[in-house]
């Protein structure tokens, strides 16, 4: 996908998330008004008041959930605004986990961010960077069976940054994780992304990990 196409998708996604957010804001106000009215309504004249109140709270909780999702999706849509900017690696990982944890949950796998205490700021293409991490996670998800954990650990050594994506779990057969790895769609794609990012990826067979290496000044 070229830069213009990525930006087009980003723009459309941003527009739609904005509209969805407006819908959620309206639902929140309308249910809020119902709550306000309910609070001044006499219990005797409203026999199922408590049930009604609980249902309104449920609506508001779902709205809150929707707002969180649109907020993250909106952030994602703006990744394509620029192809070179300062990005916080911890933040990029956290954001990606939020967006992809559903795929892991289906297989009873947890995605675990193990961020460094200090922030790691690098100059890079945020969209491609997140795509590279997503490819690494997808590869491991497809190779792992049911259950386990994928751990994502960023690290910084001098001007070089790396992110280790590894799978952990008793039932994981580490010898099978990288079998015929080079022909997999995810790693072929990862290879081409790393080329664009001026980085490399390595496979650590012993620890069943994919290590993505990039310079902090890309």
């Amino acid at each position, binding site marked *: 996908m070229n830069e213009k196409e990525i930006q087009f998708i980003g723009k459309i996604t941003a527009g739609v998330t904005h509209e969805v957010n*407006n819908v959620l804001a309206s639902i*929140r106000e309308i249910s809020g008004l119902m709550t306000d009215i309910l609070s001044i309504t006499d219990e005797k004249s409203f026999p199922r008041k408590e049930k009604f109140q609980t249902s309104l709270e449920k609506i508001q909780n779902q709205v809150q959930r929707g707002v969180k999702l649109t907020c993250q999706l909106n952030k994602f849509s703006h990744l394509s605004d620029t192809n070179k900017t300062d990005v916080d690696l911890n933040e990029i990982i956290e954001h990606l986990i939020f967006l992809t944890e559903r795929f892991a949950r289906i297989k009873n796998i947890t995605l675990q961010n193990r961020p460094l205490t200090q922030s790691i700021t690098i100059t890079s293409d945020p969209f491609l960077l997140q795509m590279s991490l997503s490819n690494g996670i997808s590869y491991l998800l497809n190779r792992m069976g049911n259950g386990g954990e994928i751990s994502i650990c960023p690290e910084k050594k001098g001007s070089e940054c790396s992110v280790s994506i590894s799978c952990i779990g008793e039932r994981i057969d580490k010898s099978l994780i990288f079998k015929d790895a080079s022909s997999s769609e995810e790693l072929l794609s990862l290879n081409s992304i790393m080329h664009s990012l001026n980085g490399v990826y390595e496979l650590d067979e012993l620890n069943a990990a994919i290590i993505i290496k990039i310079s902090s000044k890309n």
Partner: protein
Amino acid sequence: MEKIKILLVDDEKEFVETLSERIRMRDHDSEVALDGEQALKKMDDDLPDVVVLDLKMPGMDGMEVLRRIRKAYPKVQVIMLTGHGSEKDEEEAKKLGAFEYLEKPVEIETLMKKVKKAYKIKFESTMMAATFAEAGEFDTAKEIRDSEEEEDSLKKAKKKSK
């Protein structure tokens, strides 16, 4: 409790009308404008204490409306209430004199807290003029009042020219 006059400006009709109703239930005055031009026209007729303004609207956008309000009515406080605004938007709005920048959806109690705080600033500037006058510092009091009168006479002149 002081009754605050609030003007809500947003093109999302159901959202803004419901929010207005909830504000009125809290014993404040609330008016609705569905776009920037309507908002400025309403302000010419009846000046609110606080404006709650959306950023992205068809026609004149929120930033332009904010600019015009701050120029014509510097004492009226403006709270920006937007969907997914960027840090750049927030920075620009604050530079233009927005009192607060909030993201939608917002808890009504949070919004009302900010509205009351904004109103307090407007109220204090009027009180300040009175205090200076009492203390015999007429020049300072006049300066404060002049800017208020300027606002009123501008409003009256606009009404006359219609």
